[in-house]
């Protein structure tokens, strides 16, 4: 009886001790890791990547490539993008980056006076090198160090050649652009024009969407204005989906030769469903990587000259997803 009692008491005691210690351990054990008080290495370059439409697959790839490279090269990369494409916000980001005295800015080129002023005056006065990525701006207007991305002229040529292959040498080709086309759009246009110029049976129509003078406030108006069009090239890729939808409401899509760039979100889906005939595929990840690499080189070696014309990444045209 007595032994049983002692046994019980010790069992209860052990039980209590166990839980008490458990509870004490839970209270006193600190397992949160607060970030280390930064022994910040002053030599780590702070580079900021500024893009529009950060949630866009294209830009996500650029960012991913840049971040990957930044990790490898020990570069403190700060991705500072905006959702959508609000020019004002975008410029604000650039300005903040400049005033924050980052070591380098990699930015999606924007063919805009304010952008040029910022890069030319502000960035230069703060001694911050600017690289443009994916979309270029004229080098003499922006004082960018270099451009990393597709050769848009070449892309235009590529597209035009593909079109010739598909369509033949006669037809009415509509090139959709912004009313005030950005530099990269102009380059693409030039590329297309360069190829198609040699074919007199092909009529090139420069459709500036949103241009009141042309009477093209929206994509809708395209079909009304150019009922004879046999082919559409989305120089500004973002018009593609709208165009396809618009055509579908009236007639079949198949007879049209529609081409676009991979900047369009739905480009591959449209291609898969056969609604469009080709997508110019760029190499966003390469762009990201290369831009960071070049920036890092520039910052570390300082004197190494960069090719002011730009470093071009691969461009190809995808016609059939299954072939990829």
């Amino acid at each position: 009886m007595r032994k049983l009692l002692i046994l019980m008491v010790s069992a209860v005691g052990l039980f209590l001790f166990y839980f008490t210690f458990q509870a004490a351990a839970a209270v006193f054990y600190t397992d949160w890791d607060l970030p280390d008080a930064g022994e910040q290495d002053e030599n780590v370059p702070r580079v900021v990547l500024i893009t529009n439409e950060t949630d866009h697959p294209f830009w996500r790839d650029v960012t991913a490539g840049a971040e990957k490279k930044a990790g490898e090269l020990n570069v403190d990369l700060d991705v500072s993008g905006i959702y959508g494409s609000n020019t004002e916000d975008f410029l604000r980001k650039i300005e903040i980056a400049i005033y924050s005295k980052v070591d380098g800015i990699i930015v999606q080129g924007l063919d805009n006076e304010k952008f040029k002023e910022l890069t030319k005056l502000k960035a230069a006065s703060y001694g911050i090198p600017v690289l443009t990525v994916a979309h270029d701006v004229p080098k003499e207007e922006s004082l960018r160090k270099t451009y990393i991305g597709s050769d848009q002229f070449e892309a235009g040529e590529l597209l035009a050649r593909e079109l010739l292959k598909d369509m033949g040498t006669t037809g009415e080709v509509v090139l959709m652009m912004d009313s005030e086309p950005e530099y990269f759009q102009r380059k693409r246009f030039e590329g297309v024009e360069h190829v198609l110029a040699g074919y007199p049976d092909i009529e090139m129509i420069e459709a500036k969407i949103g241009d009141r003078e042309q009477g093209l406030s929206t994509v809708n108006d395209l079909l009304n204005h150019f009922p004879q069009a046999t082919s559409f090239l989305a120089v500004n890729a973002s018009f593609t989906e709208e165009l396809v939808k618009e055509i579908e409401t009236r007639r079949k899509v198949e007879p049209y030769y529609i081409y676009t760039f991979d900047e369009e979100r739905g480009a591959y889906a449209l291609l898969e469903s056969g609604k469009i005939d080709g997508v110019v595929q760029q190499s966003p990840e390469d762009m990201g990587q290369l831009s960071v690499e070049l920036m890092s080189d520039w910052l570390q070696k300082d004197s190494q000259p960069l090719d002011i014309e730009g470093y071009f990444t691969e461009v190809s045209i995808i016609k059939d997803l299954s072939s990829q």
Partner: protein
Amino acid sequence: MKHLQKKIWLLAIVVLIIMVIIWISLTYYNQKMQDQYNQILERYLVMNELNMISQETVTSLNAYLLDPSDANYRTIERRKNRMRQLYEEVTAFRNTDNESELTNYTNLTVSLVEMTERSVNFQISGEIETAKSALNEAIHIADYVSEMRLSVIDKELRTYDIFYREMIDRSEKLTELGVWLLITIILMLLFFTYWFSLRITKPLEKLTESAKRLSKGQFDREIEADSKDETAILAGTFEQMRININNLFIETKQKARLEAELQKSKYLLKESQLLSLQSQINPHFLFNTLNTLSKKAYIEGSEETSDLLVSIADLMRYNLRHMDKPTALHEELHVLKQYIQIQKARYTDRLTFITEIDETCLDIQIPGMTLQPIVENAIIHAVEPSEDGGTILFRVRHALNHVVIEVEDDGPGMTEEKIEMLKDARAVTSEKGNGIGFKNVVQRLKLFNASDDVVDIVSQPGQGTKISLYILKERSGQTYDQSSHSG
């Protein structure tokens, strides 16, 4: 009571130590939490203050451009200095998580300061338009500072999110720990107190039981206490006492038995003595016989024989009756006369007994059988050896406090040495008669008078002996209980 005290102290100290440990660790923990919390809060406050000062700097710059007074200039300077200080502080907050945001933030403030300085310089050099545009830029930058502050704080919040959650979780766990601790300590204390009190009370209980047993008279079971403290000492002494009592008890029992046996044997002895006495001749029978013989002799005409027989019978009766009690002197004297009559029948003319008695002395009390042995001595020493016999003078007279009884003979006397021996009542061996008789008389008289001064002997060889006995007229209340007997 050192051991018990030690035990109590030990318990108290153990409890105290546990309490102190708990208190210290909780306080430490609390302090740590508080520090962490304060630290984080301070970060926010400092970061925020940097922003506030930035805005104020722009405001003061604006005021300065509108009114380029010294006071306004000083305000700008003061705020700029403050911004530099805060810059240092905020820079110290950098960690791996917030590095880029924080660097942007601080650099923005630096840009702001630079822009402010530029604006002020333009103002001073008179390029007011440029100064204004610099002000506009400064306003922009201040805006960006404000914006960046939000993202810095946002980042901080995200970084410390774990911490806050952990803190909340921690405080819940602390409550839990408190409950567990409380239960554990209560149980531990109860257990220890029980155990501890048991260690004190158990030996005491045993002792109490032993005491009860002792009080019931069971001395044979050993007293034990299985402890090492004072109770053990108590038990030890108690045990010693028990052993002693037990021994005494056994001893007393044995004595009692022995005594009982002794009593019994004594009783038996008495009985046997009685029986032996009974078996002896009844003295009364002897007196009666002697009296009968006396009457017979008288009837047969032998008057002298009859008288002698009566004397012997009287003498015997007196001896038997009065030996133990003091008697009056006249009674003693009467017996003496009977004795002399008997002796006269024996020695006839050879014995001359002369008495000179003061009758007023005869009422005095003396021990029985005092006179006869003295006179007998005198007859033995003075009359018997001489052919012509002798004379014995018996005298009773008054002295100052005493009655003096003198027995004087005209016998051969004795030496000084012998006189001394007799006076001291030492045993005197005498070829004739009975020295012990004299000694016995002297001793009894000494007891009776309660004094050593009771006998006087005057004698010289060849000139007789005179023995004087002194009897106190008034004895000092002492009862003379004579237990000795004559010889």
